[in-house]
């Protein structure tokens, strides 16, 4: 670890000399990714609210009185709009992954590797105090990869079952029943996962609280980069091509 610390110091020095304006930032999300995240997030929240509105108990719904019908119709419309937009963003994301260089880099960095399993075990051992240092994470660690995988699986399942329910008259009741059960259960799973896994990372995690602004700015500072993604940091610092992509200098 001492070596890496020295290496960091040296790199810091070099980076500081490289940047006449001082502070440098590391890109976590580029413009397209930020927009994709933003749209997806709005859709997700809308879908969760308008979807679970169906499960609100009768007694509470009745308090809406005559406004209930309008609320229901708006709910239905919003759910369908948000669902459609979410599918479109997902389709664009696939296009982005295949046809854009940044997308291809994303896909390559996101691929699961044996190291991730090692990291998971290593990180847990670090939590338990068996290991003194956490494993060094690359651009995406096992947490990101698991969440991304769950997001892909969840979106495909939700989109497919949602579309089945939307075109209900074309299917057999058995298929619709399966779609309904899967859509409902997957919704519970996705909502809870986002609440516990994702919101912890950006809201509750002590050093991120009250909110991690990387989803708006798209960047994190050097200190955070070294702490969270040391391997990626080293890779960037060793490769001028990567520096062009991932380093943003503060403009004054």
């Amino acid at each position: 670890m001492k070596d890496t610390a020295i290496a960091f110091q040296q790199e810091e020095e070099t980076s500081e000399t490289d940047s006449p304006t001082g502070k440098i930032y590391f890109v976590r999300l580029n413009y397209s990714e930020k927009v994709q995240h933003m749209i997806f997030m709005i859709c997700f929240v809308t879908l969760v609210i308008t979807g679970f509105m169906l499960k609100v108990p009768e007694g509470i719904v009745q308090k809406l009185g005559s406004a209930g019908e309008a609320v229901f119709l708006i709910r239905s419309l919003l759910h369908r709009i948000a669902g459609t937009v979410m599918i479109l963003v997902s389709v664009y994301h696939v296009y982005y992954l295949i046809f854009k260089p940044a997308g291809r880099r994303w896909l390559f960095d996101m691929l699961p590797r044996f190291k991730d399993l090692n990291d998971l075990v290593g990180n847990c051992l670090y939590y338990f105090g068996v290991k003194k240092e956490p494993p060094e994470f690359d651009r995406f660690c096992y947490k990101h990869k698991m969440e991304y995988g769950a997001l892909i699986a969840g979106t495909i399942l939700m989109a497919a079952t949602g579309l089945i329910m939307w075109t209900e008259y074309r299917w057999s009741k058995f298929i619709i029943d399966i779609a309904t059960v899967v859509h409902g259960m997957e919704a519970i799973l996705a909502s809870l996962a986002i609440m516990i896994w994702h919101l912890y990372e950006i809201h509750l995690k002590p050093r991120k609280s009250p909110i991690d602004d990387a989803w708006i700015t798209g960047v994190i500072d050097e200190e955070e980069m070294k702490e969270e993604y040391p391997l990626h940091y080293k890779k960037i610092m060793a490769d001028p091509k990567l520096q062009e992509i991932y380093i943003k200098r503060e403009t004054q």
Partner: protein
Amino acid sequence: MRPIYFKYLTFTALFLLLHFGTVFADSEVLPDTENCLYCHRYPSMGRYDESGVKRIFYVNDEKFARSVHGKLKCKSCHAGVDKIPHTDVKKVDCTTKCHIREPSTDKEFSHINMVQKYETSVHGNGSKEKPKPFPEDLPTCKDCHENRIQSSVTGLWGKSEALSNETLARCIGCHTQKDWAQNFYLHFTHRMRRTRSQPEIIKLCTSCHEDSQKMARHGLESVSTFKDTFHWSLVKYGVKNAPDCISCHVPVGYTTHDIRSRTDPMSSIHTLNRIDTCSNQGGMQSCHPGATAEFATGRVHAYGTKAQLAAGMKVATFEDHENFRLLERAEVDISKDEIFHLKVLSLIQLFYKVFIPLVIGFMAYHQWLDWLKIIRTRKKRR
């Protein structure tokens, strides 16, 4: 002298009272030729019957006059009320002739046609050769029908009364007897609208159909599974034209008095008629206009006790009379396909019921460890 004055005064007061009485009697909405209102106009009139149920015998003549039976005399329905007190009262029988001439046939009117049809329906007593068991469970006319106040159709263009007034004005142009025209108009338009809202219909039907013991006596299960469907969500939010019980069981072209078992080809929910029922093309709103045969053959209510018994997911014992009776019917009613469907659906549910706590539990534990570690390292650094 005083007592004489007093006598005169009392006499005058009584005279005036009686006089006012006749004045009020003249202005009454209902020509009370049978003199029933002499007693029944008092709101406090009533008693507790043998079973402890409060019975109210008060008649609000104004409301009665506006009701669907407002033109009838009391004795047309309440036979045998000649003695006072009424010890010889007979139960109201809707098949009796009520001394009103039915204009199309000029014969005395009676509800016997409806009752005859009803008796052959799923709610009827069955035939004389094959009467249904537990006849006391079966609904009679009065279980669903009240003497409703007639109301004309409104709401085609908003909730304004203007439509009614304008149409009625046209009637009165030729039919100069205003009262007659108004009554005829109400009689006609009252039947052009639903008298009960969707929640009211569901409340009415479930007052029996959610009583699982009563249902089990007839080999049926509680319909509470309806509340697991999307149809119910629409009703819950008060959506107009939301599907309630009669939307599928009595669609356009069927009558509530002739609801039949789903195995009967005359039933709206028989496999042969399902496409028409689901698409509801002749209705106010076509529900699933492009319904395919495959879509329309499935089960609409969620799987209930009967399917669970047939699939062996619930066991009925001899002591458990309710389920034991259901099991007999379940073997006939639930097809092999339905058992398979139920098993697949249950398996998916079971998978998620195990998978969700596992995944979420792991996530919560992992993040909790992360949080602890960060807090501890911070403390150490300090």
